[in-house]
């Protein structure tokens, strides 16, 4: 009987320890950057002077202006083109980065309008000299948890986002699959053409 009581006491202690929590997060620079990015974005979406249908274009422009510098578009475009990047001329590369940026802008900035009232939880951050990964959970109004990871790259101390992974689906990988499939079957020019079309539609 005594033994059982000891086990009971032990478990009581264990549970008591569960009370002791620490709420501070030692965020690295990369994590701070992601937080800042999200903060800035949310401020714009919440800004009452930018609210309403008429201000839609203005809001999106402002949002894009704020967020754009924190993404390393060239790195993203390069990685999504994969092994086809090295064969491109500097002009082609520049053009591709532009098209890719336009593609992303149309795709994502439009979607942010539907975002409001959700919670963002920072889970963990891993960082070494050059790379960092910041893991977050976006919690929607319907209490659904979406795992969003930001991959960052440091260019002499300046951190920029080069990939976003949503529920395990990496943006860069997804585009790379698409681009590779197009390039295997047709030419680079065709890909550029398709991207232009998509950019116009946006």
């Amino acid at each position, binding site marked *: 009987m005594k033994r059982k009581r000891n086990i009971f006491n032990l478990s009581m202690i264990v549970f008591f320890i569960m009370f002791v929590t620490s709420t501070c997060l030692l965020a690295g620079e990369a994590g701070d950057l992601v937080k800042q990015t999200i903060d800035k974005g949310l401020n714009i979406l919440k800004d009452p002077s930018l609210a309403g249908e008429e201000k839609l274009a203005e809001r999106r422009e402002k949002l894009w202006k704020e967020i754009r510098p924190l993404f390393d578009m060239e790195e993203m475009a390069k990685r999504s083109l994969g092994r086809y990047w090295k064969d491109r001329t500097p002009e082609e590369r520049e053009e591709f980065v532009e098209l890719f940026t336009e593609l992303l802008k149309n795709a994502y900035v439009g979607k942010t309008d539907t975002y409001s009232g959700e919670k963002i939880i920072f889970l963990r951050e891993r960082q070494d000299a050059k790379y960092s990964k910041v893991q977050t959970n976006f919690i929607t109004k319907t209490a659904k948890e979406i795992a969003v990871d930001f991959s960052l790259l440091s260019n002499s101390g300046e951190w920029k986002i080069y990939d976003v992974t949503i529920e395990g689906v990496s943006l860069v990988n997804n585009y790379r*699959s698409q681009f590779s499939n197009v390039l295997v079957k047709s030419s680079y020019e065709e890909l550029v053409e398709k991207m232009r079309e998509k950019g116009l539609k946006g």
Partner: protein
Amino acid sequence: MARLVFYMFISALIMYTFTVSTYADGAPASQGQNDTTIITNNGKKPVEETDVEDEESEFVDVELETVFIQDPVQPYNRAIFTFNDKAYYYFFRPIYKGYEVVLPEKARLGVRNFFTNVRTPVRLFNCLFQGKFKGAGTEALRLVINSTLGVAGFSDPAKKYFELDIQDEDFGQTLGRYKMGTGPHIEWPFLGPSNVRDTIGLVGDIALDPITLLFLVNPFAPTGAKAFMGVNDLSIDKGDTYESLVEKAIDPYIAVQDAYTQNRSKKIRE
């Protein structure tokens, strides 16, 4: 002895609940004005590793080579994909939009919770098959709590008050855990993207799924129930997942195939 265990159980529940409420209030908001809150870490100490040698494979992800997904019957798959896409936009979307109007969100969330609760055995057994005993226990506990406190599963107090999360496991993931390869990609009418392994998984889960028992009532009842579940889920999701993926894509078929495959890999890993 039994009484002691009973008291332990009750105090464990109380402790858990206490701890949960401590966590819930403890998190600071970064911008007080927004009603969107950025919470740092929810009260738990973060894991910050500056030494990432063992994480190398995940970090130095400069794998500039594309992994081509096995797809020997791609023309067939693409055709089915086009069919599914049209079916979504012209058939299912109008249906769930209409459904949205008829049933308020709270009720639809309740329906989702109900079905999730009913299908607990699928997740529970797959947790066991994968040796995830904690997960199995969590699912069992969720079933008990939600069926009682949660009024036959329409509510989810297990998650809200006890922080017991859904353990998203299915037989396809179990097979993946046991290192079964995905096999070729398959696009099923209505069901959407899948692969050989996950299709076997779907079939296996039919045996574990209580909804299957509805066939005793009517041979089409399980299918009908699942279709209803699907429409309900879509209405909550508002089609965002599918539409946002497809609209942004240069090649929607590949976008969906790739997203599906990456997502499944992630689920198997955890």
